[in-house]
């Protein structure tokens, strides 16, 4: 059930059928709540394992209620800090002293996303961002919504409530239903076919790494191992998001988009505005903006601003890494994300200062500069992901087996290959989109989409049945 499987789709289909029996708000709320509880039961049918998560949720709700009843600034800050500390404690971050950790087995699946939702509720409640008191039912449905429980996206409560608590549910005509089915099919195809094949390819390269003798073979192995993972992660993560966006639409909820062609980004800062968008947005609103505003108030100097912004960016993206996991690998992953985005910020302001805003704009649309930056962005992201999917021992083994210089060559090959491949992809896409019928791109017409979706569904079903293997694990389920 915790994967993009037929079982999950079957479960969703039953929930959708029952949910749409009545339009009444209470009915919709109750069906969603029961569906959420059943979903958790399928993830683990041992209630004791859920106790810590339930405790965190209870803490969140009590805090929210106290804040909404105007408990005072000091109490609010105390509850905010306690919430963050509880998260760190439950997730067993490596810096938490061992005697403080609960050593018995319990489940933290979904906790990271619940954490963002609870914090968002608390902060907004303090700042008059919530118009109505949040009821327990709405709180539970918002935090445990089975469509977003495992991998997000992180929806704002106000948007969730707008759909869930509306007297009349969001309209769902035949076109909306068709588009929702399309998202589910595409998502299922991405996870169960593309990401599966990419994962198999990377595993094969890893398994044969030690037998790679020649320089070319080692270079190839290094490049394949590092370059495939971002593509795999994208298909795995965005595919599941596509599926839940489609399913939620049938539950009369419009979930926010989480991806916008991230590999088309011209720099690492733009990349993060296209990748895991709801996480970036959350951090921008609740970390970057307040941090930068506070530092700019303290040091009001136009010359310092780019550096203050780079610092705020570094902190923000460092937290992205830390949020992903509890080990030093994720800490380092965060440092690399933060450094990458901060470097872009400083570079941009330096170049703009030198050649002016118009000059910089012209540079970014240059036919050579743009693809090179795109390739560099991809290569950097692929490189940083080494600390995301492997550990220090595996990285050491990779460097030792392939050789440091050859590995550097592999990275250069990834950069060059990504530059050419992504540019070719963008040009091909532009060409395809230029073929129009009735003023709209032929590729986006409902006939073309029907053909493509039917083919994707048939291939996905065939591959799933032929492989006779469980659906690929969702990478973000672990966070």
């Amino acid at each position, binding site marked *: 059930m915790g994967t993009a499987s037929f079982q999950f789709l079957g479960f969703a289909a039953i929930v959708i059928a029952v949910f749409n029996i009545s339009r009444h708000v209470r009915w919709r709320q109750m069906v969603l709540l029961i569906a959420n509880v059943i979903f958790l039961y399928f993830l683990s049918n041992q209630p004791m394992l859920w106790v810590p998560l339930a405790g965190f949720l209870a803490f969140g709700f009590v805090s929210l209620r106290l804040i909404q009843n105007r408990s005072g600034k000091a109490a609010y800050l105390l509850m905010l800090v306690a919430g963050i500390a509880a998260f760190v404690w439950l997730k067993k971050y490596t810096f938490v002293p061992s005697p403080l950790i609960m050593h018995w087995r319990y489940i933290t699946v979904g906790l990271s996303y619940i954490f963002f939702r609870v914090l968002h509720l608390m902060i907004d409640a303090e700042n*008059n*961002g919530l118009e109505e008191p949040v009821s327990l039912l709405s709180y539970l449905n918002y935090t445990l919504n089975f469509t977003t429980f495992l991998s997000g996206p992180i929806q704002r409560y106000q948007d969730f409530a707008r759909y869930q608590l509306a007297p009349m549910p969001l309209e769902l005509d035949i076109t909306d239903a068709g588009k929702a089915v399309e998202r589910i099919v595409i998502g299922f195809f991405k996870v169960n076919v593309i990401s599966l094949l990419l994962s198999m390819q990377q595993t094969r390269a890893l398994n044969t790494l030690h037998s790679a003798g020649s320089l070319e073979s080692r270079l190839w192995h290094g490049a394949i191992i590092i370059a495939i993972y971002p593509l795999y992660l994208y298909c795995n993560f965005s595919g599941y998001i596509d599926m839940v966006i489609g399913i939620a639409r049938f539950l009369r909820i419009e979930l926010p988009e989480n991806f916008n062609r991230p590999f088309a980004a011209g720099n690492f800062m733009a990349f993060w505005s296209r990748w895991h968008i709801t996480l970036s947005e959350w951090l921008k609103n*609740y970390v970057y*903006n307040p941090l930068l*505003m506070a530092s*700019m*108030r303290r040091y009001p100097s136009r010359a310092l601003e780019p550096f203050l912004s780079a610092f705020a960016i570094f902190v923000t993206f460092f937290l992205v890494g830390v949020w992903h996991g509890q080990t030093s690998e994720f800490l380092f992953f965060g440092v690399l994300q933060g450094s990458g985005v901060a470097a872009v910020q400083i570079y941009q302001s330096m170049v703009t200062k030198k050649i002016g805003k118009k000059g910089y704009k012209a540079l970014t649309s240059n036919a050579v500069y743009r693809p090179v930056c795109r390739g560099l962005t991809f290569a950097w992201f692929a490189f940083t992901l080494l600390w995301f999917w492997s550990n220090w021992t595996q990285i050491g083994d990779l460097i030792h087996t392939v050789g440091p210089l050859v590995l550097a060559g592999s990275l250069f090959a990834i950069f060059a290959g990504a530059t050419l491949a992504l540019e070719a992809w963008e040009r091909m896409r532009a060409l395809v989109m230029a073929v129009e019928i009735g003023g709209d791109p032929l590729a986006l017409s409902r006939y073309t989409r029907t053909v493509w979706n039917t083919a994707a569904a048939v291939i996905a079903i065939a591959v799933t049945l032929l492989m006779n293997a469980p659906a690929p694990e969702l990478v973000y389920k672990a966070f």
Partner: protein
Amino acid sequence: MTTEDVYKKLAVSFQNVFDDDSIVLTPELSASDVDEWDSLAHVRLMLTVEKEFGVKFSAPEIGRLKNVGDLAALIQGKVN
């Protein structure tokens, strides 16, 4: 303060932040319409507006803004 007054004052803030006299403020104008309107410029704009109107914005308020219309409405809600 009328909506017109808010837009007049806002226009000055925008011109100062973006160093561009050609920006015409409409309620629909958003960050995607102005090249230089990135996350740093957004914060700079918020601080300038705070100073100009003598108001203070919270993180959730800034996060909710989608366009100039939202910003003008937020300011009006605070100053009136």
